[in-house]
């Protein structure tokens, strides 16, 4: 998921800001990704987007916008996408990948 340090932009809604993100699916066995927003302590922060769980084909790019209330921006730190793993029928370990960008910018 890019960018690692997204730029927060104004949206068309008052007191709501927008973050433009892009996701690339490099995992052939994964088809769905979930978008999540967390504070510094990994507690969920409310946000809005078109699809919280979106379908992204293998080697496919998908752009999406995340809308966050201005009042939540002091708390919002990690914007993450997590792969949704499928049930299998063999005794195995599955790998769930999560990639997180930072909304509070690169530390000095």
């Amino acid at each position: 998921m890019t960018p690692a340090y997204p730029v927060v932009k104004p949206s068309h809604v008052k007191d709501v800001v927008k973050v433009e993100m892009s996701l690339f699916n490099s995992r052939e066995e994964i088809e769905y990704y979930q978008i999540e927003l967390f504070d510094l302590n990994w507690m969920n922060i409310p946000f809005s987007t078109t699809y919280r769980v979106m379908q992204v084909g293998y080697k496919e790019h998908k752009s999406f916008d995340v809308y966050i209330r201005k009042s939540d921006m002091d708390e919002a730190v990690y914007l993450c996408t997590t792969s949704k793993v499928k049930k299998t029928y063999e005794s195995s370990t599955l790998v769930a990948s999560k990639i997180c960008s930072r909304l509070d910018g690169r530390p000095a």
Partner: protein
Amino acid sequence: MKYSVAILSLLAFPALANVDIVGNVEAKCVIQTTKAGVYGNPIASKLSTTPADGGVLPVIRYDVSIADSYTANITHPTAFSSSPSLTDTLAWTGSTSVTQTSVAGMSAYEAAKIVVGNTTIFDLTLAGSTWFSTASSAVYGSAKALPGGTYTAVVQATCIAK
């Protein structure tokens, strides 16, 4: 006539312009599964991904485009995401190690790793690819035989911008 030839020659002069191609490499982290893990069942009460136990270690590859921008946090399982009904406790163990690197200096990640509970944290200080493998084993309470069926557990591989 002389003037018109001069004007025409000016008009026929090709327009030249320099067109720049601008590229930008930004910080990016890509996670791929190089090898899916499989549990072996060396004894009736144990499931393990260790090759000596008949299992296969899952291998996860991290690609980072810019040095010192991300940490890799890999969490080994402490529960099955799906299994037959179990009536006793499970004793879980696990660990994550660097198995392959694209840059020689990345081998230092192994010595510098931090283990917090069941999560192993690697500071990705160099750009390039790193392969990690995660060992996981579960032993059923009081050496009971595990019920027959399919057991699945999830390794959480996270890449967090610093």
